[in-house]
Structure formats: C-alpha cells, structure tokens
C-alpha cells in the first residue's frame, strides 16, 4: 500500500484548491454567461443558445487540432488555410457532381497530407514550427485559391447532407452540430487520456529528453499531432462550407488565431505537456459567446474586434488569478 503522509485536513484543502483550479475557466464561462444574459434578455433564449452552439462548432473543432499541437509544444498557423482548402475541395467536388461522402473523404485525405507534411518538415528537418506553418499557410491558401478561381471564386454548396449538417436536429431538438462536437471531443478525450499514444503526446510535450530516453519516437509522435491538426482543419472546413452554404476566398482566414485563443483560454501552456482538451472546449465557448453577444448587443462592427480582444484579455487575467490563488 502507499503510505498516506498528509493529514486529512490538508488533503481536503488541497482538493478544494484543485477544484478551483479545474473550475477556473469554467467559472469564467459562467460569469460571462450570467453577465451577457442580464445585459440582453435575448442572449439566453433557446434560439440564440442553439446559435452559439453552431457558431462555436468550427472553432471548437479547430481547437482539437490546435490542442494536440500545443501539447507537444508546437504551433500550427496553417489551420485556417487547411480549413479553406477543405471547404473549397468539398464545394468544387459537389459542383462537379461527386458523391458528398466521397467529397468529404477527399477533403480529409488532402488535409491529412498537408498536415503530415507540416509535421515532417518541422520534426525531420528541424525547422521552427511557426516559420514552417506560416509558409504552408500561404502555400495551401494559394493552392486553394487557384482551385476556386476556376469557379469564379464563388461556389454555392447545395446538398441535402450539407443542409442537414447546418440546420438539422438529431435528437431532443438539439442541433446536429452539437452532437458532432460531443462525439469529436469524446473521441479525442479517449485518445488523449485512455490510449498509449495520448500518454506519449503528454510525455513528449512535457519532457522530450526523458521521452526519447524512454524509447519513444518523438519525431513520429509529434508529426502525428500535426496530422491530427490537419484532420481537425478538414472537418472544420467541411462544417464551414455547410454553415455558410457557399465558399468564397475569405473562408477560414484568421481562424487559426481563434483556435489559439480558445486553447490559451483553456490554460494550455506554449511549452507543451500540460492542459486539458475539455478546458479548450470551454475556451472556444467563451470566444463564441463574446462574439455572439457583441452582435446581439449591436456593437459597431469596427469596435467589435477591439471589444472582443479586451474581453479575451480579461478572461485570461481572471483565469490566471484563480490559478495563482489555487497553487
């Protein structure tokens, strides 16, 4: 048996601290929710809540990929472009009359390739991840732009399946996208916390030297994280195309920063090896709530970005505050 060294009391205290720490970002979300509901009654209406779920879905799914990359101490700035590539591929394939499921599969495969290439360049050639993904951000977006040019830079996405993804309700009157998020986060949660590979991600991110001496193939594990990031971007792109009902050259641009915001709000460190993907989900929710509230409240479009930024800074400060007081 393991020996219990601390008294029950300190144990309790520490457990309380642990709860506050885990709840930190959750508390931020609750506080914001209450605040926004008080400011505009429409915020907490059922319709608007469904709207928020739909709005959060893209960032939430991107954040899955960004979390995995953050966990190994990396960064993927090409996610927005990958997402754009996937949306363009889906739309153009549908336009050419392809089966919708096959089209989606092609989107995922394409982004698996780009994501893995990112990983290989970063990990095998040892080039800084920010530089590499900044480069591939341009390259991938350029490639997709060439493709969309052939369709006069504007493709409508009209298909029963894509429409169902946007507006459909799967069960209990809840939008399909809600269940998509739940399923994807369950899968990634199981992957990270209940598989060998997930544990290795945390190990490689937390202490790469020790991981290498444990006999782990660090480069392979890290490369696979960039692959996951590609898959997440592909799914986000598909959903973006479904949500918008069309694809134009502005799709996905800047989305990688929303994902970074969500991940950082969720408390993941840039060093890697720390943090939880479920907190990232809450981070994404906060980003979506803030942006939704701004629209509802009728904030001037130019001022909106500024206010969103301020809200995010406040949320991060609050989060840091609770963490400091709990450790």
């Amino acid at each position, binding site marked *: 048996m393991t020996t219990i060294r601390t008294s029950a009391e300190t144990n309790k205290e520490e457990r309380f601290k642990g709860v506050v720490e885990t709840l930190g970002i959750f508390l931020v979300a609750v506080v914001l929710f209450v605040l926004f509901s008080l400011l505009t009654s429409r915020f907490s209406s059922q319709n608007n809540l469904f709207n928020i779920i739909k709005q959060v879905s893209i960032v939430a799914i991107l954040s899955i990929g960004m979390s995995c990359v953050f966990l190994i101490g990396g960064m993927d700035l090409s996610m927005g472009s990958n997402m754009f590539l996937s949306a363009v591929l889906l739309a153009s394939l549908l336009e050419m009359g392809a089966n919708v499921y096959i089209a989606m599969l092609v989107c995922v495969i394409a982004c698996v390739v780009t994501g893995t290439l990112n990983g290989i360049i970063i990990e095998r050639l040892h080039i800084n991840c920010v530089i590499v993904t900044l480069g591939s951000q341009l390259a991938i977006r350029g490639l997709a732009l060439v493709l969309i040019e052939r369709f006069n830079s504007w493709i409508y996405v009209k298909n029963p399946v894509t429409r169902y993804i946007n507006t459909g309700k799967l069960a209990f009157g809840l939008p399909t996208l809600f269940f998509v998020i739940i399923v994807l986060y369950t899968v990634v949660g199981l992957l990270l916390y209940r598989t060998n590979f997930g544990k290795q991600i945390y190990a490689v991110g937390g*202490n790469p030297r020790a991981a290498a001496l444990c006999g782990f193939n660090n480069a392979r594990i890290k490369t696979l994280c960039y692959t996951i990031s590609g898959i997440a971007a592909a799914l986000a792109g598909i959903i973006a195309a479904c949500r918008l009902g069309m694809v134009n050259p502005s799709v996905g641009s800047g989305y990688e920063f929303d994902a970074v915001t969500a991940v950082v709000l969720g408390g993941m460190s840039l060093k890697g090896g720390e943090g939880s993907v479920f907190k990232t989900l809450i981070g994404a929710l906060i980003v979506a709530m803030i942006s939704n509230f701004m629209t509802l409240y009728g904030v001037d479009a130019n001022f909106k970005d500024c206010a969103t930024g301020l809200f995010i800074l406040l949320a991060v400060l609050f989060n840091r505050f609770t963490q400091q007081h709990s450790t």
Partner: protein
Amino acid sequence: MKPILEMRNISKRFTGVQALLDVDLQLFAGEIHSIIGQNGAGKSTLMKILSGTYTADSGVIYINGKQVQISSTADSAKLGIGIVYQELSLLNNLTVAENIFLGREIVNGVQLDNAKMSDMARKSLLELGIENIDVDQNVEVFSLAKRQLIEIAKVISIYPRILILDEPTAALTNEDTRRLFNILFKLKEQGICIVFISHRLAEIKKYCDSGTILMNGRVTANVRMNEVNELQIIEYMLEDNFNTFHRKWRTKQHKKQPLLELSDIYLHNQVNYVSCEIFPGEITGFTGLLGAGQDILWRIVYGAQRKDSGEIRINGKRVRITCPSDAVQFGIGLLTENRKEEGLFPEMTCQDNIALPSLKHFRIRKYTPLLHNRRIRNSCNDLAKRLSIKMRSLSAKVKLLSGGNQQKIIVSRWLMKDLDILVFIEPTRGVDVGAKTEIYRILESLASQGKAIVVISTDTTEILQLSDRIYIMVDGKISTTLNEPTDEETLARLIQGNPEKKVIA
C-alpha cells in the same frame, strides 16, 4: 597572519540531508586553498553559501575580521568574492569583450564604447598572460580551455579578493591545466586568495598550498599540502565503514555466458576503444573521475549518444543500437543522473511515470487502442509496494515526491517493462541516506533475480559496496578491471590514474 575570510560553524540542512555541519574554513591572502571531498561531501554547498546562492542555517562569516552577511550573489560580489562555475556562464553569441564587460558596459554618452571595452579586455587578458585570444571574436569559436581562461579574466576584471574555481580542470588537458595554474600563481602573487575545487588529487597536491577536507558535510582535516601525501588525503576523504551497506548475496560462479559484450567502443576524445563483458546476476560497477568517459560509454550503449566505431553483442549476437528505442527493444534500460531532465515527466502522475513505456501491454483487447486503467493501476501498486515507494496516491503528480522516491519510480518503470540489463548512472545522487540503502537493496535483489545491473558512479564507497566486478576508467579507457573486492584506498588511487605508483603501505 590573519585570515582574509573566515567561516565559523556553518551548518546547512536540506530536506532529509545534513549538507554541512559546523564547518570552519579559513582562507589567507596569497594562497591557493583547496576544498577536497567526494561527491556529496558538501563542497559545492559550502561554495554556494559563499557566493550567496544559499544562505546558511547557522554560522558566521568574517571578512578581514569583520562579520558580514551574504544573502545574495550581489552581496558576495560586493564583498570581493568572484566565482568561476563548473558550467561556464559565458554567453556564446557575444564577443569576448562583451562577455567580460557584461552588465557593466562602458558607455560613451548613450553609445557603447566598443573600442574602449575591447582595449581593456585585451589588457586584462594580457595581464593574465593570456595571448592568442581575439577579444572581438564570439566566444563560441574558442575551445573549452580558452573559454575557461576568458571566464577567469571576466571574474578577475572586477578585482576580487577571493577567487573561487569550481572544478576548472575537469575538462582540461594536462597542458592546459599547467597553463591555468601559471595564471593562478600570478594572481596569487598579487595577494588574491584562490579557492580551488577539484577531484584530481595529483593536481591539488602539486599546485595548492593548503586544503580543507570534507566528508559527509563535516571537516575532517585542514592540511598543508607540503606536509601530506595523496594517500593521507584519501584517508581523510573516505567514510568510516560504520553502518554502511553490505551485500547479503553475491554471485559465485563466473563460468556463465556474458549477456552483453562491448568491443572496441570508440568516440573521438571521449571513449577510447573500450571492451568489456556484462554478466547476468551480477552488479558491474564502472567508476572513474568526472569526465573519464564511463557515463558517455553507457549512453553510447543505450543509443543516446552516437559512437564512431565499435560493436555491441547481446547473448553473442551482434546488435545495432542507434536510438534508445532500439536499446529498450534489446532489453536495456538506462537511468541517468539527471532525474529531472532525463527521467521524470514532472507534470504527469506517478502512475503514468511508471507505466508509460509499458502501456501497450495494457490494452483492453489486442487490437483495441484503449487501455485498461484498473490493470495498470494494480500493476503499478504492486511495484510501488515492492519498492516501498512513498507517495500520496498513484494519481499524485510525480514532482511532489522526494528524490529517493522519484528514483524508485524510474526504477519501477523499467521493472514493469521487464528488461534484462539495467544501467544506473549515479543511482543515489540527490537521494538521502535512508533511501540510499533501500536503493542498494533493490539493486541487489534485481541482480539476484538474474538481471544484469550496471552501476556507474564516481562515489567509490558506493561502487565498492555494490559491485561484483569493477571497471575503472581513466581518460576514456578501461585502466583496470577488478574481479576481486579491494579496499577504498586502492580504488581511489586507481581512479586517479597512477596504478604503478606503490603508495599503499
């Protein structure tokens, strides 16, 4: 003569370890004084108290007869104490002159006066008799020996009254060491007091005037170098053999097949054609001075360090090991002396830290990637019980554990993996005395189960108490193989690399 610096009754305690107890130290101007002792004797702690990195729990420090408080590194610099650390503190991407004037740059208005700094840097190097160093070159182009000299020039340029050198010669050749001492002699003539820390007794005997010998945090002797010989110094350094560990069990037969054979392992300048055999059921000890190549050799075997040539055979079959995962596959596990940097995943739980490399054996079904958490937990609990690891629970973060328990966590990691060859580099560094004996017992019982245990240590007592067979390395070569037990004096002398001298009575 009055001492320039005097420390009286200095004590310092870390959790579970009495690092220093009532240590007295007297330093005189114009002398080279050596602090002598084995690893963990308290040399570094004592110097860190002087430099203000640590503060003593009790005791007083006098400089020129006046009592002083040293509570920060800035304090010690103000009092005229300059330190050259073992790990050089130069910034490689700056020039020599910039390094020397780092933090006290000479300015001309708002602009840096580079010309003047270069000039002064050149002058201070010349004063030390150091030539052939272009002060406008980046530090990274110079050899380790030259960097050492630059570092000394940097410390000297603030005119310290006391200059402390922490193992400056560990990485230097004999020629470089001689040149270093020529410079130190010059400084000595200027009335600077020099404190010299080294493991190489020959150097100490040859160049120092006096010495303070520490053993387990206590002063065992103050000596004048012209009055003692190396053997007497060694005697003062070694523990009395009270209450020490004794092997209960040793292998008798030597007719077995070697499990692991190394032949002609070579790495330029580090390991010089080493061949040896490791047998199952034995504890094989490797020892030598710091930098004699014993740890690099085993990092090569583990695939953590590349080699230039040489062959590794396991059970008589030649194997290719190019990375640690190869080594693990062939049944070799390595535990390094840097637990924090190279062993633990501090933010992860004890359970994860134990089970990480073995997780693939805990799948729910053969082709399902999901893991069976309860089976992992049970098997970690068994190991924790076997090695009596003290922790709050398996899901506590491993960084909260004490050094000894962290070490046991890493041992249990490789036990779970069921490897045949376990290599321990400095297994008890940073571990308190109680846990030390426990770890020795664990090593012994592992050997009795037929595993091949390799212990690499600079602690001669440890090596003697544990090993069935001892390889002594000097300058990258195995200088001596001891198949029979020996006494500490012989071992200490062999490590110094002068086997032909008949010092032993």
